[in-house]
């Protein structure tokens, strides 16, 4: 998985490419641990993400909880497979998803 970061003031956009799974989720977790300090807006662009597994959901949930305290978070450009995962797991109600 490739992780691209675009920081604009207190807004960070993270673009994910590939698969967010057991093997790659720790990479994203590390980026978030280093970058969330002082952010008020976090955006995940998933246009190039193929899919995510529960390991990826765990990292997104952690980010959402943190951003609930310090600002806002949204997820954009989600494909059909990923949207279905968000729906069956109830994450569609937890996350702010924009297409």
């Amino acid at each position, binding site marked *: 998985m490739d992780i691209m970061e675009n920081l604009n003031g207190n807004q960070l956009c993270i673009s994910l490419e590939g698969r967010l799974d*057991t*093997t790659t989720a720790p990479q994203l977790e590390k980026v978030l641990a280093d970058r969330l300090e002082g952010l008020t807006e976090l955006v995940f662009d998933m246009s190039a993400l193929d899919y995510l*597994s*529960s390991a990826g959901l*765990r990292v997104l949930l952690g980010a959402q909880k943190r951003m609930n305290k310090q600002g806002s978070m949204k997820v954009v450009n989600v494909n059909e497979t990923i949207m279905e995962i968000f729906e069956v797991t109830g994450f569609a109600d937890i996350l702010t998803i924009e297409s």
Partner: protein
Amino acid sequence: MKELTIDATVENIETVTMFVDEQLAQMNCPLKAQMQIDIAIDELFGNIAHYAYNPETGPATVRIDVLQDPLSVVVTFIDNGKAYDPLAREDPNVALTAEEREIGGLGIYMVKKCMDEISYEYKDGKNILRIKKKI
């Protein structure tokens, strides 16, 4: 029928995924079904890697069978580790808020929802978990 026996480690999830994807490509499996099967591999082989032989490492076998009418693929995960039935676990409450959420059990729940059938048996000292997906 094709099968691969390999050490059950997180590092080998990718090898297993590539092995299964190669078989799916030969069947002209639609991309969405392939991705759902790949997610199931991440969850199920990942579980074996984390828990079956913990703290040691041991082997797992992944077998693919193709069924006709309707065209379906069956992926079987076999390990000789501790007996563990992931289907015995209660489904997580997916209606909770972010703060109330616990992530445990979500992986197997996703697999149940995305596959057409899932079954578990413990036989001759082996955990045998089967998923079936129409393609």
